[in-house]
């Protein structure tokens, strides 16, 4: 029996009805309490918000030279978008309407996938729009593809698919932004498939408005010699949870996950990542950092599974956390499961305050205590951002991150 859009929707909806939202009794959701979402939004969180509700400010990254896809409250805005010609882009909404058989693959729901939950089921059942991107074999997109999601509160369920042909290359920037004072929910699933020797640099910038909840999932599967880099930055939203699930399926695949949380107030940010080394000679690098101020709470769980036969695996994971306030909290857990000899796996976690020797050094050079602390905090965060190749994005995030740090004064000098 071939799957239809309706059967997938129904299966996912039933799965959600059975499972509901995950609770803190679930090990993977121990620190992240989603009951806040139903309390805040009630039944509304099922209902996708209309496109034009609320006023949308221009929240795009300045001076970014890119093709642009604009989604407003989860709906594609064709007029404000500029699409490239060398690759194929359609939207979930148009596929559902015109060629539902093509939407099947994009919306597919897999109950037993790692870190699957009611959140993903709800996304499959409800997703109304999103970009479906196909990069043909041997095509290198000449400019980055900028997917801007702007919302004005309310709920959106988004599904994005990126399929990379053999030897193809793309830079994708997913930017979630909002400037409003309403409660809301973004539920976004992005699936990226990398074929042989293809390469994808993926920026995922979470800068939602203060009362928005953000639930995200990025699924990556990689064929032989493909290379994937994620730059995930978490600055906005009151509650953000993102799951990154990466499968290295064939030899020579390379993946790099870079994450930065900058949180203040009562923000809650949680990333669960999982990398499956299923083939020999794959490389994974994971660097996550958090700067937490106020009463913010960060959660990092990084699981790396080296499967049977995945010899010569080369994997390294680090997670460094800086707590600027005695009330900030981080829960961090690296997990390694290795079913195989002849592998190289390293991991390290640090939680701490600013380095006293560095502080003293700066002060002996005439830098005031406050400014020295700012410099070191910024430098700590910027080590992750320095891995970004796109300088417009890097500068934009640096400014936004710096603005969130306490008592910041001279940013432009630091960036020089």
């Amino acid at each position, binding site marked *: 029996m071939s799957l239809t859009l309706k059967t997938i929707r129904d299966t996912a909806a039933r799965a959600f009805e059975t499972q509901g939202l995950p609770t803190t009794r679930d090990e993977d959701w121990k620190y992240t309490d989603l009951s806040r979402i139903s309390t805040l939004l009630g039944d509304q969180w099922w209902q996708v918000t209309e496109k034009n509700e609320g006023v949308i400010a221009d929240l795009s990254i300045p001076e970014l030279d890119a093709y642009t896809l604009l989604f407003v409250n989860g709906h594609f805005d064709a007029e404000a978008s500029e699409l490239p010609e060398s690759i194929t882009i359609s939207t979930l909404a148009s596929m559902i309407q015109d060629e539902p058989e093509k939407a099947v693959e994009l919306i597919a729901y897999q109950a037993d996938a790692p870190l699957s939950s009611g959140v993903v089921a709800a996304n499959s059942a409800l997703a109304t729009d999103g970009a479906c991107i196909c990069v043909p074999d041997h095509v290198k997109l000449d400019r980055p593809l900028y997917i801007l999601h702007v919302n004005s509160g309310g709920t959106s369920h988004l599904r994005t698919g990126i399929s990379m042909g053999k030897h193809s290359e793309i830079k994708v920037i997913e930017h979630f932004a909002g400037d409003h004072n309403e409660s809301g929910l973004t539920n976004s699933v992005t699936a990226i498939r990398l074929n042989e020797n293809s390469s994808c640099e993926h920026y995922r910038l979470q800068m939602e408005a203060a009362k928005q909840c953000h639930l995200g999932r990025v699924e990556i599967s990689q064929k032989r010699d493909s290379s994937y880099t994620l730059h995930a930055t978490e600055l906005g939203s009151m509650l953000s949870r993102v799951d990154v699930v990466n499968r290295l399926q064939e030899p020579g695949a390379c993946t790099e996950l870079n994450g930065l949380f900058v949180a203040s107030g009562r923000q809650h940010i949680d990333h669960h990542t999982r990398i499956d080394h299923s083939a020999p000679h794959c490389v994974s690098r994971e660097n996550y950092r958090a700067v937490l101020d106020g009463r913010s709470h960060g959660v990092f769980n990084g699981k790396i599974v080296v499967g049977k036969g995945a010899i010569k695996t080369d994997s390294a994971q680090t997670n460094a956390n800086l707590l600027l306030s005695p009330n900030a909290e981080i829960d961090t857990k690296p997990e390694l499961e290795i079913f195989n000899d002849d592998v190289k796996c390293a991991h390290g976690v640090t939680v701490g305050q600013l380095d006293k*020797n560095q502080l003293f*050094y700066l002060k002996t050079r*005439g830098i005031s205590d406050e400014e020295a602390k700012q410099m070191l905090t910024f430098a700590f965060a910027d080590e992750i951002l320095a891995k970004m190749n796109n300088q417009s994005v890097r500068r934009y995030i640096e400014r936004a991150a710096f603005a969130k740090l306490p008592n910041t004064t001279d940013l432009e000098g630091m960036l*020089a």
Partner: protein
Amino acid sequence: MIKIENLHASVDGKAILKGINLEINAGEVHAIMGPNGSGKSTLSNIIAGRDGYTVTKGSITYKGKDLLALSPEERSWEGVFLAFQYPVEIPGVNNTYLLKAGVNAKRKHQGLQELDAMDFLKIVREKAKLVELDQSFLSRGVNEGFSGGEKKRNEIFQMAVLEPTLALLDETDSGLDIDALRIVANGVNHLRSEERAVVMVTHYQRLLDYIKPDFVHVLADGKILKSGGKELALELEERGYDWVREEAAA
């Protein structure tokens, strides 16, 4: 310029300095020598204002002020500079940015106008030449990935830019090869002036071949046991420190 009187200090309850008396005037170069663990680095750290030391007795007066009451940054604004024995690496903080912030903080403290980027860059380029530091080092993170010798040269470069009145060199010569030592000494000699005092804390006489001191002091067991001219350094090189101890005990 600076007067240290009967200074006693301890770390974690252990007495390290046991009554230091030392007076240094503008224009003078002093060398403080002594065996390992004698308290040499403790003295320079206390003058620069590092946490973790408890001054139990005595005082340090600098330009008529109670130095111990000032924060490390205030001491820097007043002209105190410490060239570190082990300069720390600070990735992500740009070398030039650090110095510009430091210079301008000092100028602000002195009621002077801040330097603009162009003027500052000119100064920095000129001073970098002085210690033969490649321009590329200016835009790198502070000491990030520098070799041991490069770090020491960077300390002297920073000193040249910040133009202190009291420069403390904490074992700046250790770990340097002859060429690097010559460059570092050159930089220091260039800074010698009537308004400036230099204190070199060192283990080896070798440095004093390149930077000629006016006074040499022997620091051992937390006290200055003997003071003299530069010929004292040669004598120490030849005879070691034990005779000074014995002489002091007698």
